[in-house]
């Protein structure tokens, strides 16, 4: 197998797992597997299946924890951003996904997967603005970010 094929394999396998899990939640619970939406609705009284929404999110955390135990030598996530910029980014992600009614999983996987025009706009827009944001933040802050 070529090097190029080997580097494609993890995202294809991982993406397929994400797709099955997301459509599985639709099949059993009738819910969109969008992480920001599940989090918000799980924490808001009055919604249906709040415990199941929470359980899905807990499952995602547990998968990452299990991976740590199984392969302790793998690199753990590290950000280039300093804490102050992580705070700014986190607030923007929270506010943005609230107004857009979705994030990478909800608009990306589920929204595009059901051909939602709103999601097509959202994914295109947050990708383009994300690219600009990365470019600008690097130019202005360089290594200080």
């Amino acid at each position, binding site marked *: 197998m070529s090097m190029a094929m080997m580097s494609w394999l993890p995202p294809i396998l991982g993406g397929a797992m994400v797709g099955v899990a997301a459509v599985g939640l639709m099949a059993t619970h009738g819910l969109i597997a969008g992480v920001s939406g599940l989090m918000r609705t799980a924490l808001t009284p009055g919604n249906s299946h709040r415990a199941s929404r929470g359980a899905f999110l807990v499952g995602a955390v547990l998968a990452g924890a299990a991976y740590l135990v199984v392969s302790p030598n793998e690199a753990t996530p590290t950000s280039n951003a300093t804490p102050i910029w992580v705070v700014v980014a986190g607030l923007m992600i929270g506010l943005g996904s609230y*107004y857009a009614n979705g994030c990478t999983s909800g608009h990306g996987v589920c929204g595009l997967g*059901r051909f939602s025009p709103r999601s097509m706009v959202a994914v295109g827009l947050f990708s383009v603005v994300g690219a600009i944001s990365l470019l600008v933040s690097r130019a202005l802050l360089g290594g200080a970010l």
Partner: protein
Amino acid sequence: MKPLVVALGWGVLFGAGLVTAGLIHPQVIQGYLDVTGAWDPTLLIALCTAVAVYAPLFFLITRRQRPVLAACFALPNSSRIDLRLIAGAATFGAGWGLAGMCPGANLAGLAGGGQISLLFLGCWLAGTFLGKLLDAVQTNQSPASDSEASAPQSRAFG
């Protein structure tokens, strides 16, 4: 009890998929956005595969009367492309590029991500509740209802 365990299982598979694809690493996410530099197709490959799996099964599944463990499918019914969506997606994108972190990747990477991951989680939640607060202020001090029964457009998205 059964719906809870099944949802947990889907969540584990979802998180394991993000880990397998390498998307818990902010550098991989920023690599997708780094179109003028060292562009990394990982996120795009994973997203396209996930959509390719989701789409046909979604249309097959939603032809049924109801989901296996629930009374109905909770599908977003709005197709309006409004300022709210545009402003939200742009704000999301700006934050996404800044730190290379988003909600799903944050949760799947939480166990190994240390204080920075927890800090992001806290600020993501704070941003969400800031949005709810702003909505509540705007709609004449009556809290913006988030329940599916009374929401003007379904909010079951994410």
